[in-house]
């Protein structure tokens, strides 16, 4: 299958929820080093709410799925992750509005819209050691893959590769946004938890897409 309809998109959200559940403790540990140790818990609460909301929703379009997920995630968690991921999902939903299936162009649009959402909500710059440092390269990779005529699956998997690399680059950064910004130089040497969760989510989508 090379496109995503609303049912497929719900499957992908459930796979993201599974991945978060697996990585929950790890994300808390990352956040413990330079934040308040709750990022895994927050993501898990958020994706449990998303899973529940999507199991109850009557979605006609992928946009409905994104909007339902955004609202459920935001209202369940708040925190930093809430507005950031919720805005990402909302922007993706807005971008693909009217489409019943997401083709390779829409998949690339979806990733760039998410990155834009994170950027405009968080107002971070690249290199500030935030999830944007995973989203931004992911969006660029998605666009490149689209231009290189790759399949939807390849677009997603290259976005995930780029997000993982992006997350790794946060290790050497000094935080300038978010809770860890107060650490100054002591924030260096640790991966940003939000960048790590971004990579996990994109990887879960890519793997889920390919597997089917």
């Amino acid at each position, binding site marked *: 299958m090379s496109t995503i309809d609303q049912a497929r998109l719900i499957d992908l959200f459930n796979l993201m929820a599974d991945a978060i559940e697996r990585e929950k403790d790890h994300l808390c540990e990352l956040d413990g080093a330079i934040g*308040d140790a*709750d990022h895994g818990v927050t993501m898990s609460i958020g994706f449990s709410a998303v899973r529940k909301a999507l199991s109850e929703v009557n979605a006609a379009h992928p946009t409905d799925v994104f909007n339902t997920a955004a609202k459920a995630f*935001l209202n369940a968690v708040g925190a930093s992750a809430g507005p950031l991921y919720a805005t990402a999902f909302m922007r993706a939903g807005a971008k693909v509005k009217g489409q019943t299936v997401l083709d390779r162009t829409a998949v690339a649009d979806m990733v760039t819209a998410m990155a834009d959402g994170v950027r405009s909500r968080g107002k971070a710059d690249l290199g500030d050691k935030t999830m944007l440092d995973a989203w931004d390269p992911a969006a660029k990779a998605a666009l490149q893959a689209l231009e290189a005529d790759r399949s939807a699956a390849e677009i997603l998997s290259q976005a995930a590769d780029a997000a993982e690399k992006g997350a790794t680059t946060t290790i050497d950064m000094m935080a300038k946004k978010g*809770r860890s910004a107060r650490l100054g130089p002591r924030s260096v040497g640790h991966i940003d938890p939000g960048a790590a969760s971004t990579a996990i989510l994109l990887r879960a989508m890519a793997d889920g897409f390919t597997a089917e």
Partner: protein
Amino acid sequence: MKTKKLINDPAAIIDEMLDGMLAAHPQHLMQVPDSPRSIIARDGPRDGKVGLVIGGGSGHEPTFVGFVGRGLADAAAIGNVFASPPPDPILECAKAVDGGAGVLFMYGNYAGDVMNFDMAAEMAAMDDIEVRTVLSTDDVASAPPDRRVDRRVDRRGVAGNFFIFKAAGAACDKMLDFDACERIARKANDHTYTMGVALSPCSLPHTRKPNFDLGPDEMEIGLGIHGEPGVERGPIQSADAVADALMDRILSEMQPSKGDTVAVLVNSLGSTPMMELYLLNRRVKQRLDDIRVGLHATWVGGYCTSMEMAGASISLHHLDGELIEMLDHPCDCAQFRVG
């Protein structure tokens, strides 16, 4: 080893905690119908009064709900443990306390809170509620003095909330106009300085794992109230030496003159008992006496906690005539009273 806690299902902990609060303080508090995380003062919000909405993550009790009541905050929006509330309950608070004179949002300066409260403010604007925001940024440890363009923009809000919210709540209760309330809130923040020390971590109910590691003989100065790393880690020192370390930094920023007056809060982060807080306070008083700074009032206890974290913070509120008037103005909250 996992932290022992008296809890039920962690997934329900905030809602159950709020049930317990409402059961304990029915004279002071109520929930917004259909928005249980929006806690409103029974006696407080009224027509023509600037509404004061505070809020933030849970785990700092009695902050925030304990400061909701006549003369202080009109409402608090409550998040998960150490997590900002989402926009919806904040918006519901704003709606519930709007008296047509504007609504002040006040909370500690954390990225998550800023994003969620700002979203709520935008939503409130669509409902024709004018919202202004004053962040608390009293934690002198959270950014060096030289790293601020706008003087304290990088800093966290911690236990000094106590004084900052108090001043703003008094201004609102006195029916001052929106500009005056905002001005006083900002001034109270500018005049409040906090620095803390942690001796051992807390843990989230969901993980029950210590949220940072500290050696058996170590303390950390300047640690945040969510366990965010501080400015200096070293061997644990005497109460006097710790109080001096905190006071040195606070006083060097506050720059009080002989004859000035302050109010003091010596706050437990959770498991540090009053006995130790009073030892710290003894030294605070000595230091103030040394430089001939007068003491208007002192509070000692757990006012802004981090669950079972061990440690303490010292807050100084640098008073002038107006701030004294605000501090002494009566308030009647579930966990705090003046006058």
